């Protein structure tokens, strides 16, 4: 139902048309993902790289709707999840315009940053990025674009805080060959600088067994010749980083994309009621709940809670209004209330430090202070952000 139709319904109710009371309002949530998503190729998913998606986000969306069925029924609000796949940026733009025309209240995005950047401004309805971590997207300051997946900078700050709290102040930084790796390496170094950690060396690596390139491909050579407290590896692909722990020249921990990861969610987290959420997801999706699933779940919860404030007219305007309100807070099962930052629309949230087995720490680290909200020590804070 469009917002206008919703208003008509209210009008009908006001006129006392008995039949109208039987009709529930409908909330349409769009889900936009990429067609032929190579990240979700079964062979890749099987490898289970930490930090990478485990399946379609629609599974988390459906679960969030299902777990709200009692409140939705109580408010006589019907939810329609409309999942669409697109092949490129132009397709994304067309699909978003179609969603807007069709009266969707919000659209969740599982798209590459470039597609989002070129299509988000074409519409006014709230969009929630649940799958891309790039800080450039946050720095676009697009007013209708929200982000629930922690940004790369948030994860890097969480890692730097954890290293700081362990007094592991000298790090060797290794970064991979892709443009994404270079971008993420710059972000990691900004966090390293912020927390006064010393990068003893910053070296590129290459996934290669070629003896002529062994200085780039051999873990012992890459990690020798200098002393450090930890190796921070940036490897968006994951294959090299996975094999780095226990193969360093010095017996030191590996962090980043191998060893210890900073993630938005972990399937073995056992605090703040999270086992119940994790179990619910595993029952519904038959796989572990990872960071991207949490981001899609909380994005859906945000839209539902926003709509439930005005169940008679749950349109895009209402959702936009609620999501941008400073007191709009959500329970993310991470112990503290999470909310959207007014400047770049990023969901502020704790970050879980995990080795894939358990959660060994939570950032913000104990003792880290902030004048307003300690969660804003993760990621670009208001004064640093380009967005106002």
């Amino acid at each position: 139902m469009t917002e206008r139709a919703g208003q008509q319904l209210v009008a009908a109710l006001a006129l006392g048309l008995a039949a109208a009371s039987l009709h529930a309002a409908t909330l349409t949530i769009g889900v936009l993902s990429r067609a032929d998503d190579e990240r979700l190729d079964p062979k890749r998913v099987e490898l289970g790289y930490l930090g990478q998606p485990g399946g379609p986000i629609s599974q988390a969306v459906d679960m969030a709707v299902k777990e709200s069925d009692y409140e939705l029924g109580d408010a006589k609000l019907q939810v329609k999840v409309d999942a669409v796949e697109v092949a490129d940026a132009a397709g994304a733009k067309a699909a978003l315009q179609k969603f807007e025309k069709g009266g969707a209240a919000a659209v969740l995005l599982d798209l590459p940053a470039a597609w989002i950047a070129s299509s988000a401004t074409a519409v006014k309805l709230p969009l929630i990025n649940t799958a891309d971590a790039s800080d450039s997207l946050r720095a676009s300051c697009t007013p209708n674009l929200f982000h629930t997946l922690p940004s790369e900078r948030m994860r890097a700050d969480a890692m730097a805080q954890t290293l700081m709290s362990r007094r592991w102040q000298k790090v060797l930084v290794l970064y991979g060959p892709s443009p994404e790796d270079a971008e993420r390496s710059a972000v990691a170094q900004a966090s390293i600088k912020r927390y006064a950690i010393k990068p003893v060396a910053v070296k590129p690596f290459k996934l290669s067994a070629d003896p002529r390139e062994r200085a780039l491909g051999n873990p012992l050579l890459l990690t020798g010749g200098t002393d450090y407290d930890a190796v921070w590896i940036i490897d968006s692909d994951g294959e090299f980083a996975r094999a780095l722990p226990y193969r360093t020249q010095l017996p030191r921990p590996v962090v980043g994309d191998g060893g210890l990861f900073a993630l938005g969610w972990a399937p073995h987290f056992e605090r703040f009621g999270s086992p119940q959420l994790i179990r619910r997801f595993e029952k519904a999706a038959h796989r572990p709940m990872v960071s991207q699933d949490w981001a899609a779940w909380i994005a859906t919860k945000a839209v539902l809670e926003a709509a439930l404030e005005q169940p008679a007219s749950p349109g895009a305007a209402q959702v936009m209004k609620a999501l941008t309100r400073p007191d709009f807070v959500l329970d993310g099962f991470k112990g503290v209330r999470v909310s959207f930052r007014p400047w770049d629309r990023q969901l502020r949230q704790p970050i879980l430090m995990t080795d894939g087995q358990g959660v060994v720490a939570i950032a913000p680290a104990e003792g880290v202070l902030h004048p307003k909200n300690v969660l804003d020590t993760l990621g670009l804070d208001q004064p640093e952000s380009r967005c106002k």
Partner: protein
Amino acid sequence: MHRPPIRLALALACFAGAAAGPAVAKDTGLAYISSEKDSTLTMVDVKTLEVTGVIKTCKRPRHMKFLPGGTQLMVACGDANKADIIDVQTKQSLGTFAFGDDPEAFDLSPDAKTAYISLEDEGALGFFDMATKKLSKSVPVGKEPEGVITSPDGKLVYVTSEVANKVHVIDTASGKVVANIAVGKRPRRFAFNADASELWVSNELGASVSIISTKDLSVKDTINFEVKGMRADDITPVSLAMSKDGKTAYVGLGRANHVAFVDVATRKVEQLVLVGKRAWGVGLNKDGSRLFVVNGLSDDMTVIDTAAAKPLKTIPVGRVPYMVVVDD
């Protein structure tokens, strides 16, 4: 738990067959502490404040409640999907029985024939028949129901939903939801005031307590907690206890590591007492002179002199202590 002998005899006569305990209840003078990561209850002598031993029970014991008669302590064990009945005289388990999936909080009907249990995964309130030890009914409510409390007359049962941020009110005779009351974020536990005209509910992520009028089933007041030097996000109230005279409510403030003493009449926080890490379960002794606070993240229990509002002693207990029941 203490009851005058005459009332006890009456109670036993009424529920003959249901209760198998000894004819005369004797207060043990002990506090019982359940700990999530231990399959035991820790016993602490209420006078000497020393640990006297442990009682073996099922895996991940959390909520506890005395059955009528005051000699049998019922314990819900989350990881075992069971409840255990402990004979506090012999300090032995009388036997366990299946008690839903991951049971956490429950309450009993005044006649103890029915246990009301929050079924978290299902999003329902279960009616559990204590005679047949079977679930007789399940009433759908919001997801992750948690705290459960029965009205003193047994006609209504209240249950919180952590996800829906509501208190559901269920008529026990019909099994129908009669009201859904919107409260703060992540509502957790309950306590009635002295005449049960008010039901207090803690909002863990709301840093508040909502006070529900039991007459019209609506929120009549909200108490927001503040602790100097802490932000609202650090204040996570969970457990509540009401003094016998009904004048003071004690609220464990979770991560704020304090217990608030609230004047019930004025709704004002009169005292904040520093305890251990993550103040979780709270319980009073019989005369109300001592408040016992279990600290979930420092594995200990702080005992407070309520008149002086001063901690007396902090005693190491089990791993991740959850709840305390005082039987003096």
